């Protein structure tokens, strides 16, 4: 008798039934071989049912996004075939003419970094970079993107090396809930180029002057980033992050993680303060 079978027989009847159900579920999910062993390894540590439910939910959520389920034109109304380069990789999609670039990225490419905030071009959460220009993916039909190069938040880092703008946002705490952040960062990355190219803004003092690289003041950063809203109002930190990347000057971090030592010190101080009251 194998160890596994011995273990099985030692289980109570109810537990045996649960395990059989779960075996069936794993079959239905198509989890076999190595991944099944890995799965069961995890499952013993966590409680099987919860995990299976999670995986089922994920499978259902992904069901509509699996590419090969949606590749024939007959299943799509007003189908359009479109090819574009997304984060350096050539992609070809068969889409409903109504599909926005944002939906194509999120629902068809599993690139859910770009966010759907207002879906009406008012908040900037969907900002991505197309052919080196920041644009709103919620107001761009994917069908119009033939031959374009799209960069999303997922395409900014080089391997594990974050883009300097991402690093600066973390360093300066340029977000709270993080929902607007991918759009803010894509917008800010493109803005750096606009400044380098000497592009003008409504605040430009002498617009007639020949374009040359612009040194952005805080007010200029605010004006040029006004298409990206942040309901948490992390604006001062966003400006600080952008300014650091723009000037290349280390502005110093204004926060740090609390280690156990810091927490202990803080508690000691609190205790002393309370003792003197």
């Amino acid at each position, binding site marked *: 008798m194998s160890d596994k079978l011995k273990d099985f027989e030692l289980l109570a009847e109810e537990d045996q039934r649960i395990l059989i159900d779960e075996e069936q579920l794993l079959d239905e999910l198509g989890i076999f071989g190595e991944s099944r062993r890995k799965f069961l390894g995890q499952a013993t540590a966590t409680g099987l049912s919860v995990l299976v439910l999670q995986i089922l939910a994920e499978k259902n959520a992904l069901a509509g996004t699996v590419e090969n389920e949606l590749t024939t034109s007959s299943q799509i*109304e*007003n189908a*359009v075939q479109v090819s574009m380069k997304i984060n350096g990789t050539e992609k070809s999609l068969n889409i*409903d*003419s*109504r599909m*926005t670039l944002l939906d194509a990225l999120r629902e068809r490419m599993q690139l859910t970094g770009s966010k759907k905030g207002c*879906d*009406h*071009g008012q908040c*900037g959460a969907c*900002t991505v970079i197309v052919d080196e*220009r*920041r*644009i*709103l993916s919620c*107001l*761009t*039909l994917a*069908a*119009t993107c033939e031959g374009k190069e799209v960069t999303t938040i997922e395409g900014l880092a080089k391997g594990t090396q974050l883009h300097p703008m991402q690093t600066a946002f973390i360093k300066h705490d340029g977000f709270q809930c993080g929902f607007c952040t991918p759009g803010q960062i894509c*917008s800010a990355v*493109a*803005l750096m180029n*606009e400044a380098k*190219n000497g*592009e*003008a*803004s*409504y605040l*430009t*003092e*002498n*617009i*007639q*002057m*020949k*374009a040359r690289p612009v040194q952005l003041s805080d007010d200029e950063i*605010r*004006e*040029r*980033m*006004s*298409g*990206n809203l942040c309901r948490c109002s992390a604006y001062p930190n966003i400006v600080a992050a952008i300014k650091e990347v723009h000037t290349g000057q280390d502005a110093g971090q204004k926060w740090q993680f609390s280690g156990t030592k810091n927490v202990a010190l803080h508690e000691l101080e609190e205790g002393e303060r309370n003792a003197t009251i």
Partner: protein
Amino acid sequence: MRPFKYNKTEDSVKAVALVAANPNSAYLAGGTNLIDLMKEDVARPDELVDINRLKLAQIRLIEKGNISIGALAKNTETANHPLVRQNFPLLAQAILAGASGQIRNMATNGGNLNQRTRCSYFYDVAMPCNKREPGSGCGALEGINRMHAIFGWSNDCVAVHPSDMCVALVALDAIVKVQSAGGKERAIAFADYHRLPGNTPQKDNNLEHGELITAIELPKNNFAGNSYYLKVRDRASYAFALVSVAAALEMNGGKIKQTRIALGGVAHKPWRAFEAEKFLAGKEATEANFSQAAELEFKAAKPLEHNKFKVELGKRAIVRALVQAMNNKA
């Protein structure tokens, strides 16, 4: 969004033929306004003709020092083009006062002219709106009309044109070049391009269905040294104008040879302040004269219940824009 057929072409004659042949077809350029209106179910085309690949994006010097800006040049490209920055800083400034960096990167010049009003009754399909649904009434006339017109409105519509760019273009006497079916072309003076609402507010402008803007021409002028675009809005940036003023002066010694003044956020079309211009010709460029010119212009103002503030605001904005123009702050 309702289903629609997507077509694209690189040939403008074909594009015009496609749209002209189907009364429910529309051109798709930058899409910043049209796609939004389609999501809101305000615009319901059953066919879009993508014109982004037509060769209409050039900005170039044409005869007599005039400049032609292509209908499909993006707002950003236009505002930053050396020919525009140097010779028509008023236009560059007005474009940059509108929308956001992202939207200006997408929006085209032709599309800017043809954008629809942002009147909230027009946008809300549960509300009456003669512009959206002729004969259904005007929700704004006796509704919330703080953002609405004070000049040239009718009982059928009190909406305003939302563009900043167009306010500069009407001040600069631009010309709209249009292509019709069969490759025919015509030119429309900018002041005649947009319409007052009258009893047909569903028509924003004088384009016929299927006609395509190919370019906007800017006649050479002597205003570049003394112009300014002032935009007054609820937020410091990324908001539509309560009132905006495009002001340009051509000076002759201490006196004004001629001036151009246009207002945004006050009418169904970019509002050229002809009365104020007439008064200032030959006068000295003093604040007192600017103020008197503004008073004259606003004699015709008819504010609604919630936008009476636009009268005083508009007068002061004219004075401030002219002072800035005189000091060459563009």
